[in-house]
Structures are given as C-alpha cells and as structure tokens.
C-alpha cells in the first residue's frame, strides 16, 4: 500500500519529501503547526517520532528534543491520540511512527500494530529492531498491511542488502554515511555510487536520510533517490524561525522538484 502511494506521487514529482518531528516537542501545538506547514509545502511522508528515553541511534538534536518532550510529560497515549488526529486531518500525507522498540514492546506489539492501523498510520521505522529480532513484528505488520521500513547502510555487505531487500516493504530507508542522525553528510560522487548500489538491490523506492541540510543536497538527490528525508534540520529551523520558517524552507526546496 505504502509503496503504491509513493509510486503514484512519483508520477509528477522528481523527489518526494519525508519530514520528521518529535511528538510533544516542544509541544503538541507546535507539532500541529509544523504538520500544517509541511502539508502546505506538499510533503508526502512524515515520521512521527514517539520519544523514548534512550534514543541510542539519534543525534544530538533529535535526542535533546526527545528528552525535552519526555521532561514535559509526553505520554505514549498522547502521541497515539495526536497521530490519530493528524492522520484524519491530513489524509494526503503518509504518516509513519518512528520510535525505539521498547515503546511498542511495552505497549504490546500486537496492540501497538492494531492501534496504529486503526488510526491510519502507514508504517514503522524502528532503528533498534534488526531483521534477526523482527520475526513476530513482521508477521503483525503483514497481517495488518503496515510497512516496517528497513534500513540500508554503507556498512552492509551485498549479502546483507539482499537479505534486507527480501523482507523490505513500502520503501527502504537508506543511510548515506556512518554515524547517527543530524550530522552533515558529504553529498558527493561517493554517495551517488552508494545510492546506485542500494538501488541495485531493491526495487522499492529509496529514501535517503541522515544529514539533508538544504536545497543543494536536495538537488543532488533528485534523480538519484526517490525520497529525501529531512529530520534534525527542521527541528533546528523550528527552534530558530518557527513553523512558518519551516514552511518557507520546505516550499523553497519543493519549488524545483
């Protein structure tokens, strides 16, 4: 389902955008304003990150946002309620839950998948759930026609890419470089080759994440990847210039695509 939606969008766009936000940071109200801004800019996919106290795979910006959100009292139930609200309000956008495994695990894997399906979520990005530990989770996702997004990384062997590709669904989230989110990636020839390699091993749309900073990066990705992921950058922008600033930034990027 998710893949088809993406393919449809691709018919008239060179590069889709997937943005990200940390639920409850700095508040659900700002989250709302941000999603509105993203929608206004025509963003196709949004990762809703349910904050976890130990965001091992996140960089400083997202990590801090998670931490602040929890400090202000954010509950998983509120995150789900919020997701339900925005899924309903912005049906044109594909929403995914991004979180760490413990959140669905403690919620109950089955209950979490069912709930997500019920409120209109399209899939999941769970950075600490590797293939080897995901048997039950994948069954649940399949059962409910939700996509668990697998991640391709530069450290994967060809064999591993093949293995991941064989279970991937919706799209693959491709990492441009080693390290955590939010650091600058060099958008260069090497990255282009890396994407080409990923492309060789999957027929699914390719989202490229980790480090997209602005227009130039996006232009570089157009024609190479299918989806550009913009994460930490938007949190910084929101902090500096607010939701309208984010909207302006996204629209500018969007303009050429």
């Amino acid at each position, binding site marked *: 389902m998710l893949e088809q939606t993406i393919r449809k969008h691709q018919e008239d766009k060179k590069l889709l955008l997937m943005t990200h936000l940390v639920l409850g940071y700095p508040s659900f109200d700002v989250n709302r304003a941000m999603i509105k801004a993203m929608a206004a800019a025509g963003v196709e996919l949004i990762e809703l990150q349910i904050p976890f106290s130990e965001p091992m*795979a996140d960089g400083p910006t997202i990590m801090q946002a998670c931490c602040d959100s929890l400090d202000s009292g954010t509950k998983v139930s509120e995150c789900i309620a919020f997701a339900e609200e925005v899924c309903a309000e912005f049906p044109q956008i594909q929403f995914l839950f991004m979180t760490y495994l413990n*959140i669905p695990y403690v919620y109950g894997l089955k209950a979490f998948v069912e709930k997500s399906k019920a409120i209109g979520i399209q899939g999941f990005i769970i950075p600490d759930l590797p293939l*080897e530990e995901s048997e039950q989770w994948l069954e649940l996702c399949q059962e409910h026609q939700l996509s668990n997004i697998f991640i391709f990384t530069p450290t994967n062997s060809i064999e591993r890419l093949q293995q991941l590709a064989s279970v991937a669904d919706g799209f693959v989230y491709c990492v441009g470089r080693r390290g955590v989110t939010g650091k600058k990636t060099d958008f260069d020839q090497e990255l282009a080759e890396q994407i080409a390699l990923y492309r060789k091993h999957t027929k699914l749309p390719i989202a490229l994440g980790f480090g997209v900073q602005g227009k130039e990066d996006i232009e570089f990705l157009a024609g190479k990847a299918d989806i550009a992921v913009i994460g930490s950058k938007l949190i910084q922008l929101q902090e500096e210039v607010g939701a309208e600033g984010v909207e302006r930034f996204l629209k500018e990027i969007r303009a050429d695509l």
Partner: protein
Amino acid sequence: MSHQKQGYYGQFGGMFIPEILKSTFDELISHYEEIRQDPTFWQEYENLMSTYSCRPTPITPADNLSQYFGGAQIYIKREDLNHTGAHKANNVMGQGLLVKRMKKTRVIAETGAGQHGVATATMAAKFGFDCTIYMGAEDVERQRPNVFWMEKLGAEVIPVTDGTQTLKDAINAAFRDWTGNMDTTHYVMGTVCGPHPFPEMVTWLQSIIGKEARIQMLQAVGQLPDKIYACVGGGSNAMGIFSGFLEDESVELIGVEAGGDGLQTGRHAARLASGDSTVGICQGYKTRFLQDEDGQMRDTYSVAAGLDYVGVSPILSHYHETGKVRFEAATDKEVMAALELLIRKEGIIPALESAHALAQAFKEAPTLSKETKILINLSGRGDKDIFTIAQAFDDQKWKEYIIQKGEQYNA
C-alpha cells in the same frame, strides 16, 4: 524471538542493534568465537592478568568477622587487589587482547563511577590504543579524581550532557560514537549487558574469578562454599564468580542489588529484588528494566554509582526467573554499616558497590551454622571512592580539609 537464538537466555538477551552496526557485530562475534575456541587466547589472557594485575587474586578468610557474627565462616574473594582496584580490569584486559586481534586502534567505553573508565583507559595505555570515555556530565563532576586519572592515562573524557547525565546516557553516547567509527573502534562494554555477544563474552572473561575461586576454596578450605554473595550492577562481577559454580547444585548464589533508600521508597536500583521492574528492550538487549508504564526508563538511585543502572544482565534476569540465583537488595544505610565493619574488623576498604554483597552476607551470616562457609566477592576497593564515602559518613574533618584546600586554590 525464539529461545534457541544466539545470545538468548530464556526470554532475555538478544541483539537489538541499529543496522549500521550489523557488520561490526558480525565481526565481533566471529572474533569472539575464534578466541573462545583458541586455547592460546585464554593462556595469553591468564598470563597478562598474572603479570600485569595480580591474578590469581587471593581468598582471605575473614576470621574476625566470622567470630564477630558467630555464625557462618566467611571468606572473601579479593578482586579489590586487581590492578586499578576492581574486577573491571579482567574484562578490559581481555577485550584489549581481542581488540589487538581485530586490529582496531581505538577503544571507547561508557563509565558511571569511573571505575570502568579508568580500567579501559589503563588498558588503552598498555596496548597503545586511542581511547575515548563517555561519562555523564554529572558523574564527571562527582568523580573528578577518576577523570583526572583517565586524562593522565591519555584518554579523552567526554561529558555526556543528555538525559539524566549518568551511566545509561553514557552508554547511548558510546553507541552513537561507535555507529560513526566502527571501522577503527571497539566499544569496550563494561559489564554483562548490552547486545550479544557482550553478556556472554564479558561473563566469559570475568569467569576467571569463579574458576580461581572454586580451586582456591577446594584447596584452602577443602570444600565448596555453601553460599556466594556478589553485588549486581550490570552483573559482571556476579556472573564472574557465579560462573565457577553453576554446576554445583549445593552452592547457593545470591546477587545483591542497590536498595538505595529502601525498596518501598522507590528510590533504589533493584531490578530483580524489587517488584518494580518489567521486561523491556533497551540499549541493545532484552531484560528487566526499571521503567514506567510507557517503557520510559526511570531514574534510579544508589549511593554506589556502579550499581545505579536501569537494566541488568539478561543472564541474571534469566537466573532470576529460573530461581538459579536469589536476589536481594541492601539499602544505603546497611551498606555504609557493612563497609565500616569490614574496614574495622578486617582492615579492608571495600568499594561502595562491593559493600552491598557484604551487607547481605552480614545479614545472613549470624543465622547460619558454624559449619556453613560463605564466600563474598569483593569486587573492588573503596579508597578511590573517598569523596563519596567521606561525604556519606558526613565526616567533618574531611569537609574542613576540602574547604581549606578550595580556599587555598582560590587564592
């Protein structure tokens, strides 16, 4: 999530790692399996520990204490005599040999109290590795002496300002570093937690304690101990000594967690001895965590920084479930009393962590017969903890000394 899978102990354990680290773990596991097969590795390890540290560490008969309690005969395994002052040395030196075999040139580690950080920095100096230590910013402030030594040993100490600024945040930070530098870098996990193969590998390296202890008890006492007490932070010293006695049905194994202000207060770090933990998946492995109903990790508390951690070894969670190990908790108060008593009666200054094992043993010793032999694993020495211990005793002369030194430095 079948129970037969590699790295699982009952329902606990596993390897919940970001995909970017997959190949690093593949490599680590393959090297680990190689050294486990290769008898020269263990030889090299034992040799290193006997020339660089002072293994085998002795077992001290604590005759004064035995007499004082009038119950069980008390024996103490002296990990405090290790180079750098704790059992942590075993693990780091073993991993150091492994890093050499992996041809990596840099090590990173998390540290809470600083003990594992100092041990890792020491190992890095000895092996000539670059070294970065992640330490919660709050711990950096609290444990300046250890930070001083780590820096002198050539390590870079990075204060972690995220989250609660303590051990678990340092672990997150170390993982983050690793995901960016896995080609050159090995993450020296400090205890029997984290993703496979760490729980198994660190247990294996620490099993040198139990191997020695079993032989020593048989030789010196002529029988196995009836009970063995060890404190449990992550669980490495406990698993280390328990390892030697897992097949001995007659030996009761007791793990002692941090009871902090008391289990009923909620201010503690007892994952297994309290009813307060639930199963979760965090920092790469599945175990019982002190977490809230959403799965967010809770604040924990103990006077002993090394026991103050939200998770616990998946192996111990399994043993908890099967009843193989009994878990108890000792409160800060009980711990300070036990520490004072050991110092006074036997002239041994225990680490605050280790004093938890003492506290529980001291509760039980008087109720046991004179024929009962109990063995306490003294995981580390306490003289490095002077700031914490003097403060915990509210020692006025110490405070005056520090005030005066401070004024002198300020002048």
